[in-house]
């Protein structure tokens, strides 16, 4: 009697052990994928990604060179003639606003890092779920008279959309991810106080456990917009006295 009781206990324990083992292996299989193949695939993809990024850097360099040449020509020619010089100055101003010029100046840098894992109570969320806050940050910076804004080195222009794509954010069609770095050129103290306002952006972000660093900087560099915006539908209104 005593012996069969012990056997029964062992049987039950073994059964449990088996089930737990099976579940464990199944989960590992599901999340990791099977075998060695994915490892190779991942390495291939990593190489491919690196190559693409190098290509992109080369393309950016070619573009920069062409634009530097254009600027040199325009400036060189404009120096000969006062009217042309004024035109060139005007042109530069509109290029700055349209986003087709690299800019530098004093301003602020806001870095938003995803909340650390331990305070999340099992429910994971990241800045991807809080795009509203990025849009509001930009609006607040503009209200504080920011002159140029970039998000992870993507210039914020009149045509810039901030969209969610899976677990990424797309800005100007380029995917970015946490940490989000928003840079703005303008009066540093105005910009900073606009964001650090009580119950403002920084307060809200910190309330949701994001790691936020806000700092004034004397020289913020903001890159230009690298997309050709073609106007297909919108045409300038012809003035009647033309």
């Amino acid at each position, binding site marked *: 009697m005593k012996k069969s009781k*012990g056997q029964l206990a062992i049987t039950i324990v073994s059964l449990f052990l088996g089930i737990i083992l099976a579940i464990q292996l199944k989960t*590992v299989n599901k999340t*990791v*994928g099977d075998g060695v193949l994915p*490892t190779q*695939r*991942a390495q291939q*993809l*990593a190489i*491919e990604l690196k190559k*693409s990024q190098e*290509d*992109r850097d080369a*393309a*950016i360099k070619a573009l920069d060179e*062409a634009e*530097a*040449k*254009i600027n040199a*020509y*325009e400036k060189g020619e*404009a120096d000969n003639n006062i009217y*042309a010089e004024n*035109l060139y100055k*005007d*042109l530069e101003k*509109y*290029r*700055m*606003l*349209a986003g087709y*010029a690299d*800019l*530098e100046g004093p301003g602020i840098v806001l870095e938003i890092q995803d909340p650390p894992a331990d305070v999340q109570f099992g429910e994971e969320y990241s800045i991807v779920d809080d795009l*509203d806050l990025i*849009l*509001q940050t930009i*609006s607040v910076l503009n209200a504080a008279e*920011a*002159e140029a804004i970039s998000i992870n080195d993507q210039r*914020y*222009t*009149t*045509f810039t*959309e901030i969209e969610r*794509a899976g677990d990424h954010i797309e800005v100007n069609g*380029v*995917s970015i991810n946490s940490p989000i770095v928003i840079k703005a*050129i*303008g*009066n540093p103290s105005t910009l900073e106080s606009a964001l650090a306002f009580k119950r403002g952006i920084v307060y809200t972000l910190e309330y949701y456990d994001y790691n936020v660093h806000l700092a004034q900087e004397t020289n913020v560099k*903001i890159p230009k917009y*690298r*997309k*050709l*915006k073609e106007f297909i*539908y*919108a*045409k*300038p209104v012809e003035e009647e006295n033309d």
Partner: protein
Amino acid sequence: MNKTKKPNFTILFFSMILGIFMAGQLKQNIPILTPVTLSSIQATKYEINSVNKEIEDIEKLTMQRTEQLQILEGIALGDEDIIDILDAELENNKIAAGFEEVEGPGIIIRMEDNLAETAFGEEFDFDVIHDIDVLRIINDLRGAGAEAIDINGQRVLSISEIKCGGPIIRVNGKSLGAPFYISAIGDPKLLNAAINAPNTYAYALRTIDQLNIETTIEDHIVVPKYNGRFNFLYAKPLKEGD
């Protein structure tokens, strides 16, 4: 007594060996398998695609810049006049920057607070339009490729703020009251989908918050030019070699 003790001891012994082997087995697998999850492969693939798209955009812009450069080189030959070139370039950048009135097909969105007596929320907060609602809708329109956007006659640019100020919304430093008319020039079908398709932000505002949002597709919309602040006090163009 002896008989029952002996099997217990063997089982204990074997369990310990089993435990050690299992631990060894799992430990061995971890360094090979953890870096490659299926989702990380997917993420890399996605990133490669987006980098390739970026390269395409940059190359398009480079082509356009090279053409410009060729025209500029014509000056040296006496074929072209610098003033004409600068004038044309100025015009292009003015349009891109939003300093020209533009016209074209698009949609007009009318947004109004929920005016019903028995409104949706316990608080009036839910029944009125906030800055974030307008920001989200404009972001969606930009995602759908809008070329020019205005709210109640205020052109929305990259430096336009959209902020709540009590009962009104401030855009470009001007106060606007409900109802808001947002006009956007672009592909009317895409723009309409960005507002009316299920699961868009505007759809949620209309069906859940029951704000009054109506869209009309128009063949001809005129979007006025920007007349807000435009002074770069802090930002300077980044000069190479400085």
